[in-house]
């Protein structure tokens, strides 16, 4: 059965450490539910038994950024809120990923106005954009699968020269 069936007589197999870390990492993505407006309702729906984000190992929505590695920004980000979003993102431990969920988050959407940031990629490194207003929960799951594929393709050297967080950002903003 399963993994045991792959084992030979001696009970071990050889793989790369990278591969086993990526395998573990991508099947236990802890999302930070940054629910700012109506997209958050669809994000909650993705967590319920009908869509069941737990099938992908992401059911543990942590309400503290310290325990998360995926930020789902679900909703309209205003200029005033952008500082809060960035502050929470900065508190998440590396490595971390970002999903921009919905039209508002990705491009400003229907809020073409002075107060709304026209796309959170102006201040956050976004990995996956989700289309829709709001997107269906299946669409969010699709984005999560994309994130998993992305995590599966990372190499150890991707993290070796990673930029350290400038601590002043946290203290002064």
């Amino acid at each position: 059965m399963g993994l045991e069936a792959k084992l030979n007589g001696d009970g071990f197999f050889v793989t790369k450490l990278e591969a086993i870390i990526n395998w573990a990492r991508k099947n236990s993505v802890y999302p930070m539910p940054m629910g700012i407006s109506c997209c958050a309702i669809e994000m909650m729906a993705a967590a319920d038994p009908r869509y069941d984000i737990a099938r992908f190992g992401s059911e543990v929505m942590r309400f503290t950024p310290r325990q998360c590695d995926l930020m789902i920004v679900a909703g309209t980000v205003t200029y005033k809120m952008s500082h809060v979003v960035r502050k929470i993102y900065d508190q998440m431990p590396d490595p971390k990923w970002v999903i921009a969920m919905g039209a508002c988050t990705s491009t400003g959407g229907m809020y073409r106005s002075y107060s709304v940031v026209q796309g959170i990629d102006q201040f956050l490194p976004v990995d996956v954009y989700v289309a829709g207003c709001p997107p269906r929960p299946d669409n969010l799951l699709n984005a999560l699968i994309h994130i998993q594929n992305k995590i599966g393709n990372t190499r150890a050297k991707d993290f070796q020269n990673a930029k350290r967080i400038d601590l002043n950002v946290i203290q002064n903003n």
Partner: protein
Amino acid sequence: MELKEIITKKLNEHFPDAGFEFSEYVGEFNIKLDKKFIHPVCKLLKEDSELEFLLCEDITAVDWAKRKNRFTVVYHLFTLKHNFRLVLKCDVDESDCNIDTVSSVWKTSNWQERECYDMYGIKFNNHPDMRRIYMPEDFEYYPLRKEFPLMGIPGSLSLPKK
């Protein structure tokens, strides 16, 4: 006597020189008055036992751009006793851009006046906490004024560093 007549009579009795202009539009009773009288008029409307306008639903403003008295501050009042809505209007000029607060009459108008100040730049005299409510405190413009561009002024609102 109808409520409109009672209001008209009472206001004319108490404030003979407030320059009231009574009118009716889409079923709502409108009263235009001099901005100097806004506080005592609101106090009377709320505290008179026959009227009891206990609810201040909204305070906002209109920007007429090129008119002589550029702004009109609009008060929407409601009396639960009679199920009746009343609209008060005061003209405010840009050169003398202030009006007395009514936050001592209705506590809810504290934030409504702050919003009005935030969006139009109309100062409310004697207001206990005249700060911006929506926009960041260091923002220099008034977004709902006609000259303000829809997409804002580039660089006026800060974004975090990437």
